[in-house]
C-alpha cells in the first residue's frame, strides 16, 4: 500500500476520534434512557474551557503534559456539568429532556462565543503523537492505527471496553435495562434514576473529552466562530446510525470522517470538477441519507432490491432500534 494512502487513512482515524468519543459518550447516556441533546454546544464550550485551562496550567507549571491533562479534565468537567443539568431537568424536575438539551446547546455555544473572543488564534499546548512501541511496526495497520495520540488509543479502549461492559457484564445488563424496561429493572432492585444520573454524567464527561480532543489536538486552538460547531449534531446522528452499539457507532464516525476527508481532497484538486457547493453540502446530505437508511420503513423498501439470501443479514446489519424507554421519565411510586 502506498505511503500517501496510509497517511490519509491515519488522518481519518485521527480526525474521527472526537466523533468516536462523543458518539460513545452519548451512546452511554441514551442506553440508559436519557437523551442529551446538548452535544453541539457542550463540545464547543468544553473545547474552549479545556483550551483556557491548558493555557493557564502551562503558564503556571511550564509543563505541557500537566497542562494538557488539566485541559482535558476541565473539558470533561464542563460537559459533565451540562449533562448533570440535563439529568436534573429531565429526571428530578420532570421536564422534557429534548427541551432542556436544546436550550443548553444554545446556551453553551453562546457562553463560548462570549468568553472565547480573547483566546482566538492563541497558541497553546498540543497533544503529540506517541507511537506504540511494537504495534506501530506492523506494516500498514501499524502506522494507521498505532502511530497516533493518546486520545486515539483512549477511543479504542473506550469502544472495546464499552462493548464488553454493555454486553458481557451484569452491570452492563442493568445499564441497558434502565433504558429498555426501567420498570422491570426497578422490580429487580435497581435504583433506576440514580443510575440514569450516573450514566448521563459519565457520558457527558466523555463528550467533554471529545471537545478537548478538538481544541488540544485535532483542531488545536480556538477560533471564532468555533471550527467544530455542527459536529455535535453529527455525533448525535452517528449514534442513531450506529444503532446504539459501540462498534457501529465508532464505524459510523470513521465512515463519516472518511467521506469528509474524501470531499476535502476532491475540493483541493480543482481538475476533478465537482462543484464546491456539493462538497459543502455533503456532510448534511450524508446525515440525512444515513438516517434514512436505518429507519425501518426505508430499510424494508431497499431490501426488496437485494437477493433473498442477503436480505436477512443486511436487515440485521442495518436495523437500529432505539432503547425502548429513550427520553421517557420513570417514577418509582
Amino acid at each position: 500500500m502506498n505511503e500517501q494512502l496510509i497517511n490519509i487513512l491515519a488522518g481519518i482515524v485521527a480526525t474521527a476520534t472526537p466523533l468516536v468519543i462523543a458518539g460513545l459518550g452519548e451512546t452511554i447516556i441514551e442506553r440508559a434512557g436519557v437523551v442529551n441533546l446538548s452535544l453541539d454546544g457542550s463540545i464547543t464550550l468544553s473545547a474552549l474551557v479545556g483550551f483556557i485551562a491548558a493555557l493557564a496550567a502551562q503558564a503556571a507549571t511550564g509543563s505541557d503534559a500537566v497542562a494538557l491533562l488539566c485541559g482535558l479534565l476541565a473539558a470533561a468537567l464542563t460537559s459533565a456539568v451540562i449533562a448533570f443539568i440535563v439529568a436534573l431537568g429531565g429526571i428530578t424536575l420532570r421536564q422534557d429532556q429534548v427541551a432542556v438539551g436544546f436550550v443548553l446547546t444554545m446556551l453553551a455555544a453562546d457562553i463560548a462565543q462570549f468568553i472565547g473572543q480573547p483566546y482566538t488564534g492563541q497558541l497553546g499546548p498540543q497533544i503529540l503523537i506517541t507511537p506504540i512501541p511494537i504495534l506501530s511496526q506492523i506494516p500498514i495497520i501499524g502506522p494507521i492505527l498505532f502511530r497516533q495520540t493518546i486520545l486515539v488509543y483512549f477511543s479504542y479502549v473506550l469502544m472495546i471496553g464499552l462493548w464488553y461492559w454493555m454486553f458481557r457484564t451484569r452491570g452492563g445488563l442493568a445499564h441497558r435495562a434502565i433504558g429498555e424496561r426501567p420498570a422491570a429493572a426497578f422490580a429487580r432492585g435497581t435504583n433506576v434514576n440514580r443510575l440514569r444520573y450516573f450514566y448521563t454524567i459519565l457520558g457527558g464527561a466523555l463528550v467533554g473529552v471529545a471537545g478537548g480532543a478538538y481544541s488540544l489536538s485535532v483542531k488545536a486552538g480556538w477560533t471564532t466562530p468555533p471550527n467544530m460547531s455542527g459536529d455535535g449534531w453529527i455525533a448525535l446522528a452517528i449514534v442513531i446510525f450506529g444503532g446504539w452499539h459501540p462498534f457501529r457507532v465508532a464505524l459510523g464516525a470513521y465512515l463519516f470522517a472518511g467521506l469528509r476527508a474524501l470531499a476535502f481532497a476532491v475540493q483541493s484538486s480543482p481538475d476533478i470538477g465537482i462543484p464546491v457547493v456539493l462538497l459543502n453540502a455533503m456532510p448534511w446530505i450524508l446525515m440525512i441519507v444515513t438516517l434514512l437508511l436505518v429507519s425501518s420503513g426505508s430499510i424494508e423498501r431497499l431490501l426488496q432490491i437485494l437477493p433473498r439470501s442477503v436480505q436477512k443479514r443486511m436487515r440485521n446489519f442495518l436495523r437500529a432500534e432505539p432503547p425502548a424507554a429513550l427520553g421517557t421519565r420513570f417514577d418509582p411510586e
Partner: protein
Amino acid sequence: MKKPSLGLQVGLTILPIIVSLAITAILIIAAGADPRAVFEKVLEGAFRNSRSFANVLNFLIPLTLVSIGLVVTFTAGLWNIGVEGQMMMGAIFMTWGALNLTLPEPFQLIAQILIGMLGGGLWALLAGILKTRLGVHEIFGGVALNALANVLSIYLISGPWQPPEGGSVRSTVPFRPESLFTVIAPDFSVSLFALLIVLAALVIVWLALRGTRWGLQLKATGKNARSARLLGVPTTRSALSAFVVCGMLAGIAGTHRAITVYESLRPLASGGIGFLGLLVVLLAANRILLVPVITFLFAVIVGGSTRLKIALQLDSSLSGVLQETLVLMMLLFAGVRQRVLTRRDTSSTPEASPSTPAEAAHE
C-alpha cells in the same frame, strides 16, 4: 387540592428571572464589566431614538412570525428546528423574485412575499416528508436542512447571483425600491404592512387553533399520535400541514429580514431568529397570546445589545446568554414548582401539569 399560598406562587415565578439575571451578571463581572452599565446600554440601545426603536421592531416582526409558526408545530408535537433554514429558504426564493420579476409597485413586493412563503413552506414540507414518510426525526432532518439552506445561499451569492462587478461572496446586488417595504418615516424605517401581517398571522393562527377542526386535529396529533390515528385523525396530513404553515410564516420572516435589514440576500441572513423563536415558544409554554409579549422583550434585549460592542467591548452573544439562561431557569423552576406543589398536597392526587410545548412534543 389546597391552593398554595400567593407568596409561594409569586416567588416561584419571579425566582427564575432573578436567578438568570444573577447568572448573567456574574458572567458580565467575570468579563470585567459592570452589569448596571450593561443594563443601561441595552435600554439605551433599544430606546435611544426612533432609529433604534425601529431596529427593535424590525427584529420583533420576523421573530414573532416564526414564533407563531412554531406554536403550530409544537401543538402538533413537532420540534421544528428546521425553522431557521425555512427562513433562509424564504429569503432565497424571495430574492429570486426580486431579481427576476418586474411588476408595478405594490404587486412586486406582494409577489416576493408570496414566493418567500412558498420557499419556506416547501423546505418545511421536505422536513415533514422526511419525518412522516421516511422516518428521519425532524430534529436531525431540520439541522441538516438548515445547513443545506445556508450552503445554497452561499453558492447562489458567490455564483449565479453574484453582482456584476464580481468577486463578492458578501451579498447579491441591492434590491430595487419596488422590492422594499414602504416605511413609516425615513428615520423610523418600520413597515406598517409588515406589522399588520404579524397581527393577522397572530389572530388567524390563534382562532384556527382554538376553534377549527384543523386545530383540534393538530392538538390530538400532538397529545397522542397513536390514539389520534386510531380515532380517525389523519395524523400524517396534520403533521405535514403544521410544518407547511410554520414554514410559510418562516418564509415571510426570512423575506422581511433580508429586505429590511440587508436590502439584498446575504449568507446567514436568518441570523438565528428561528432558534430564538423556539426559545420564545418554550418560554410561552406554547400559549400563543404570550408570544408577542416575549418576542417584544427578546427584541428589546437583542436590539439593545448591539450597543454593547461599541460601548463596552462586550460580545453581543451576551443577549443570547441571558435569553437562554432565562428559558433554562423557567424550565427547571417549572419542575421545582410541580415538585413543591405535589409535596404540599399530601392526598397525592397528581397535579395536572400545564401542557408545555415540550410535553406536547413527546410522542
